[in-house]
């Protein structure tokens, strides 16, 4: 399988088309939606770049917190963690829980909205 252009390069090219060619010719709602589309493509690029390491970190955190087997799917791990919190088995007092959730949420916002003000607060 070749990747010239790579997925990221293709997305980059489409985003540049929206920003430089399409959007300037649009007005009103269409212009607004073009901006939303461009932002969505920026999220796609960050997701492609950052998700593998962010997910690996999330998985490591979940496996350590839950003492779960290595091969457990991430979705299952998050379901297990949700159940443990919901049942009161894990709370704000549980060592490492808040740290794991914070790290995971920060990694997600870095992809979704890296300029979000709450991310700066979390880093402070």
């Amino acid at each position, binding site marked *: 399988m070749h990747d010239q252009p790579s997925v990221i390069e293709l997305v980059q090219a489409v985003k540049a088309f929206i920003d430089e060619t399409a959007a300037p010719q649009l007005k009103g*709602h269409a212009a607004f*939606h073009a901006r*939303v*589309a461009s*932002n*969505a493509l920026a*999220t796609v690029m960050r997701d492609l770049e950052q998700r593998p390491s962010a997910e690996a970190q999330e998985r490591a955190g979940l496996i350590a917190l839950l003492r779960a087997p290595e091969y457990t799917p991430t979705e299952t791990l*998050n*379901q297990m*963690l*949700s*159940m443990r*919190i*919901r049942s*009161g088995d894990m*709370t*704000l007092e549980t060592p490492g*829980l*808040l740290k794991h*959730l*914070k790290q995971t*949420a*920060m990694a*997600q*916002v870095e*992809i*979704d*909205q890296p*300029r*979000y*003000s*709450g*991310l*700066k*607060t*979390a880093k402070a």
Partner: protein
Amino acid sequence: MGNNSDFETGLHALFTRVFGDSVPLETFKRLSGGASQETWALSGGDHSAILRRAPGGTSMARSSAAIGLPAEAALIRAAGTAGVPVPEVLHVLSPDDDLGDGFLMSRVFGETIARPILRNPEFSDARNRLAGQCGTALAAIHSIALDGLPPELQQSDGLAQIAQYEEIYRGFDAPRPVFELALQWLKANAPAPMATVLVHGDFRLGNLMIDESGLVAVLDWELAHLGDPREDIAWICVNSWRFGQTENRVGGFGQLSELLDAYNQQTGLSLSAFEIDWWEMLGTLKWGIMCMIMYEAFRSGADASVERAAIGRRVSETEIDLINLLEANHA
């Protein structure tokens, strides 16, 4: 409404009905679109008015919590009588108007979009006054007598809202551990309810008309309900509604103490910032679940727009805000 020309004919007739034969409708322009309400600006002679109408004239509430346009008109009138800055309701559409559900109100001028209000120099005086003005307006809203309000209003206090939003969230079957922790914290720390008042339900920049001197009108009453006054005060403090200006807890422009000073002075209550914290946590969680609801409209195929898809990626902003709040409350 069969077609556009029927709609146009209806608008002309409406304008004449409200302003008289001597002032024909000259221009009409759609101001907002989308799945919620239609907003049209009408003008002729010296008159300008806003028509707020159900999409395509068909009455379909945007969410189960929305009260419907006739009830909204009734509330705006009650709010005006109570001294809340609101537009004047000029006419509530009837079947004779053949324009569907909606109402006509006076046009108030100013800015509703958060970014210019928070950044542009012409709003700097407004920004200084706004927190106090919001406190005064909320005090007036919360003082409106409950008898005589439209029967569509639902009663919904803090615990009822937790139950309602938890059920929606569970229905998506997409567990988010941060939401679970916030739900547990909210349930364990729920304050005793205060006396029931009329709650605006969406009091924040975007729904407030602002000019150079400050608050001109409180708009968008469709999420109004009966509940706890702290809900309204906290909603405008939710970090998403600070639009990047996190250091200003009230809407990105003011301090909570300014809002509460004005509010307490007007109501005779003595609410403290500490009492708003629980409600800010709830408001943040609610906004996160609302984003999930809006994304669901995309996922289900009901609304294929990029906007509805992308809003699903705003859920994480509420997760980081909830973590920040949980850390602050845990310290």
